[in-house]
């Protein structure tokens, strides 16, 4: 790679973009204007919100206890502890209690009509027996600290039997009505507190009895960390969304725009290699992505700082303190997060934009890219989630979690997960850059003509051009069909496993109906040879022996892996209960039936599908790594329980390696069957009921009513497995031929 070329392309692209007024406006001017304008707007809106005085009509004001009124003679709310300051935001009108006999139902109707017509925001109905009910309530439940209950009557939903003589008629679909309800509730709570205190004094007791417990608080977190914690939830989201959008628009201009203007072909015929062109463009896009995100971040932060100052001067020092300026170290961590994320988003945007023939077409690709990446950016905003092994494995989210931990000062936790996050992030960056370079190397992408798509011609082409194995697209489609089918199957599975026949029907339906059938149908209709498409080839004897040994020797590692995963992510109570129920069901069945159904059938179906059809399609054009990675992901996702999925995904990598080296699926079936047989065998003989035969004590032990492998056997088994993997790397000429033909 010639760095001089990359530097030249980078400088040219930067100069070109900086001369484009639209880019400059989007990247630099918009962030500077956006947040101050939003801030201004919000302050105006907040002002309107604060200033709005709700209109409340009290019907039956004379029924209110005379010794403790709610409002005074000028119909102003009487100020009480807990409801200070809200009186000026409440305009009361009063109305006497009607005299007719059917007064209440009529009253509700007229009140509803008044609210619907927006004459008032809420109507408070004070029934004649309100004062009596309050006294009864106190007498009956002197220990009660409940608030005065109100019936909210948006339409006809009136439940008078629950009321204490008060009813509220409001339209909760309207903001002003909601505001009226909230303020009135505060006023009534404060009034109730005063009323109970007064009653207690009358009964010769201390009013302090009903005062809430005062809890002295000592917060160990410094103010700066509290602020950082608050900002760390919001700022990464804003920053990364801008990093993505800041990358996308220059990427469209540098790829689709250049294609459209004809300058890309000029560059492609220059001495710059494709990867140098991609790196030059990538650096440009990343520069704009970082600049856009940083300018937005700084502008947002500066605007927030000014608003906080305003709040502080307007008498909200607590809010001002909580929202105060973000500590400088937090900004540093955010910038550190931004660098790899900008590289990742830039490479993704560049690869996606390269697909487009014009800038207009490029715009259409933004939404799918946002839809894929936004959930990853938003995931860390879920309050219950934090940095752990699972979240650190999620691209983008893991890095955000890590930075949040660093901002909040949890350095030990951050350092523990740093290697995983770095590994995932670097892998994502490298894969996305590789994808972008592949796009630029592909003639069909660079010189794509606008063919008119025709369903009949396409189907005809599928049939006419079907190969011996599936194409990479068909392989991925097969995997996606299975995942979608499994998703819908999950909803049926939960409640229907009640007995052994339902276990049988469910397993057969999932394995044959949902996993094997789509793959078989695609093999029949989209390939010329089912046997070749499913990679059913003659097995090299040495590979078969190695596979048998691998099946046995990988099981201790697989079991340890499963236990480790469950240690990090413990199974939920519901899943544990379901698994216990499932175990009870299978204990009662003959061993051969359980093995056939749960060990052999899944191994055969899953291997034919994943390491057979899908792997065979993905390995084309030298895509061995792609085939191993994608099949292991599909394989992992078909296991519905998260802990199983992670273990299956890792096991899938090993099975993919075996599938690649042996050139077929038979050895994978062998390893998978042995692994399943051993797992079910150990579960079938419960450790609390069976005595371990002395002949097996060198490899197994009973610990806390569970079978565990002996450490020495675990170590030896890893050694044997490594030797067997080395055996797999020696291919016979026949296997070599099959693999070479398949990779073409």
């Amino acid at each position: 790679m010639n760095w001089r070329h990359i530097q030249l392309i980078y400088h040219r692209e930067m100069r070109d973009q900086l001369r484009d007024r639209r880019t400059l406006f989007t990247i630099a001017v918009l962030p500077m204007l956006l947040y101050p304008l939003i801030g201004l707007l919000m302050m105006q809106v907040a002002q309107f919100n604060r200033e709005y005085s709700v209109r409340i009509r009290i019907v039956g004001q004379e029924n209110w206890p005379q010794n403790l009124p709610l409002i005074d003679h000028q119909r102003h709310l009487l100020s009480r502890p807990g409801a200070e300051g809200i009186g000026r935001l409440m305009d009361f009108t009063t109305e006497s209690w009607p005299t007719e006999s059917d007064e209440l139902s009529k009253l509700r109707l007229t009140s509803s009509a008044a609210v619907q017509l927006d004459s008032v925001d809420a109507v408070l109905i004070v029934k004649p027996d309100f004062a009596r009910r309050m006294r009864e309530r106190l007498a009956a439940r002197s220990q009660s600290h409940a608030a005065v209950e109100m019936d909210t009557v948006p339409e006809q939903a009136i439940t008078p039997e629950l009321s204490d003589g008060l009813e509220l008629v409001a339209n909760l679909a309207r903001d002003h009505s909601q505001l009226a309800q909230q303020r009135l509730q505060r006023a009534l709570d404060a009034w109730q507190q005063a009323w109970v205190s007064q009653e207690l004094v009358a009964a010769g007791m201390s009013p302090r009895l009903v005062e809430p417990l005062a809890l002295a608080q000592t917060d160990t977190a410094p103010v700066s960390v509290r602020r950082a914690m608050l900002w760390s939830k919001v700022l990464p989201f804003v920053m990364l969304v801008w990093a993505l959008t800041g990358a996308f628009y220059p990427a469209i201009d540098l790829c689709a725009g250049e294609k459209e203007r004809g300058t890309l072909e000029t560059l492609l015929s220059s001495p710059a290699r494709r990867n140098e062109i991609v790196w030059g463009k990538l650096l440009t896009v990343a520069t704009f992505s970082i600049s856009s995100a940083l300018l937005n971040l700084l502008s947002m932060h500066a605007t927030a700082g000014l608003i906080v100052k305003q709040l502080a001067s307007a008498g909200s020092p607590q809010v001002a303190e909580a929202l105060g300026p973000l500590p400088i170290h937090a900004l540093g961590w955010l910038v550190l997060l931004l660098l790899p994320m900008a590289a990742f988003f830039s490479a993704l945007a560049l690869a996606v934009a390269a697909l487009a023939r014009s800038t207009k077409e490029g715009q259409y690709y933004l939404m799918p890219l946002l839809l894929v990446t936004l959930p990853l950016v938003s995931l860390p905003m879920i309050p219950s989630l934090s940095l752990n092994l699972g979240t650190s494995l999620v691209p983008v989210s893991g890095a955000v979690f890590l930075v949040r931990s660093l901002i909040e000062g949890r350095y030990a936790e951050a350092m523990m997960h740093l290697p995983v996050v770095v590994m995932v992030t670097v892998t994502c960056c490298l894969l996305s850059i590789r994808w972008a370079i592949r796009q630029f190397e592909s003639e069909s992408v660079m010189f794509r003509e606008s063919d008119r798509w025709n369903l009949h011609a396409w189907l005809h082409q599928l049939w006419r051009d079907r190969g011996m194995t599936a194409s990479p697209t068909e392989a991925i489609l097969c995997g996606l069909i299975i995942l979608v089918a499994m998703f819908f199957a999950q909803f049926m599975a939960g409640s229907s496993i009640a007995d052994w026949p339902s276990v049988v029907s469910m397993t057969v339906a999932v394995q044959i109906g949902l996993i094997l059938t789509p793959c078989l149908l695609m093999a029949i209709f989209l390939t010329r040879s089912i046997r070749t498409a499913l990679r059913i080839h003659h097995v090299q004897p040495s590979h078969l022996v190695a596979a048998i040994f691998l099946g046995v020797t990988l099981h201790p590692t697989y079991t340890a892996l499963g236990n480790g995963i469950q240690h990090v992510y413990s199974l939920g109570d519901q899943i544990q209960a379901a698994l216990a129920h499932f175990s009870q069901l299978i204990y009662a069945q003959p061993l051969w039936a359980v093995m056939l159904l749960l060990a052999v059938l899944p191994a055969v179906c899953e291997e034919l599908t994943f390491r057979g059809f899908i792997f065979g399609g993905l390995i084309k054009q030298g895509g061995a790594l792609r085939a191993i990675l994608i099949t292991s992901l599909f394989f992992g996702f078909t296991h519905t329980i998260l802990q199983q999925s992670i273990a299956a995904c890792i096991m899938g990598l090993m099975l993919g390696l075996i599938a690649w080296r042996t050139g077929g699926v038979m050895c994978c079936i062998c390893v998978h069957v042995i692994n399943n047989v051993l797992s079910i065998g150990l579960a079938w003989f419960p450790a609390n009921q069976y005595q371990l035969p002395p002949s097996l004590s060198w490899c197994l032990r009973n610990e806390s009513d569970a079978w565990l492998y002996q450490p020495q056997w675990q170590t030896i088994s890893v050694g044997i497995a490594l030797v067997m993997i080395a055996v797999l790397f020696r291919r016979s000429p026949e296997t070599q031929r099959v693999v070479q033909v398949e990779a073409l």
Partner: protein
Amino acid sequence: MVEVEQLTKSYPDLLTGKFVALDHVSFSVQPGQIFGLLGPNGAGKTTALRILSTVLQPTSGLARVNGFNVSTHPYEVRHSIGFVSSNTAIYDRMTAWEMVEYFGKLYGIPSDRLTERMETVFADLQMNEIRDVAGARMSTGMRQKVSIARAIVHDPPVLIFDEASLGLDVMVARALLEIISELRAQGKCIIFSTHIMREVERLCDRVAILYRGRILASGSLPELAAEFEESDFEELFFKLLKESDRLRLDAAGSLNSMIASGI
């Protein structure tokens, strides 16, 4: 200088499965020659020239430029060629000088030599008055001149012009042909594709008539006139195309034997 042997390029096609854009095409061009690649739209001219400029990879066959195989030594080939196409454009937000300088640097010309070379090229192409004009403000003729300057700034031995006169007015097209003639005089090996007969008659030393990915005939203009007994080149061109269509429909006999039998 340029040798093309049995060059074939095919693309996947939704309707037919495979579209053959170039079908076993062979020709060669020597230094100081202008080789005209003639054919209607869709004949395969652009595909052939894109392969020669290493933008596309051939499906089969061999193409060598300045002794370098386009498939195995694309980097060396790109240093040996200057490629001007109706599809290659110039950057709107760069001036003529900046653009030529950018490509000169990409070709690895040292700064002092580059400035000197650019002064010469700008003077030769009479571009000095537009050196600070941005691409967006240039006329079509100006843009084509910048494209040529960009293609010759590194003084390559081979120049490829793919329908370079497309869309140019008469004056600019004439100036372009003059520039190409001057480049031939400098000993450059030039491949010039067009579908305008007058340009071929005026400029080319040898031509190949390409139709549906195949070469129907090739040689110098007098040779072709003698072989097909037709002195009007435009008439000759249409005759060959018409006959090729008839033969394709009849699907009988080889094309060469039919032409040789006196059609």
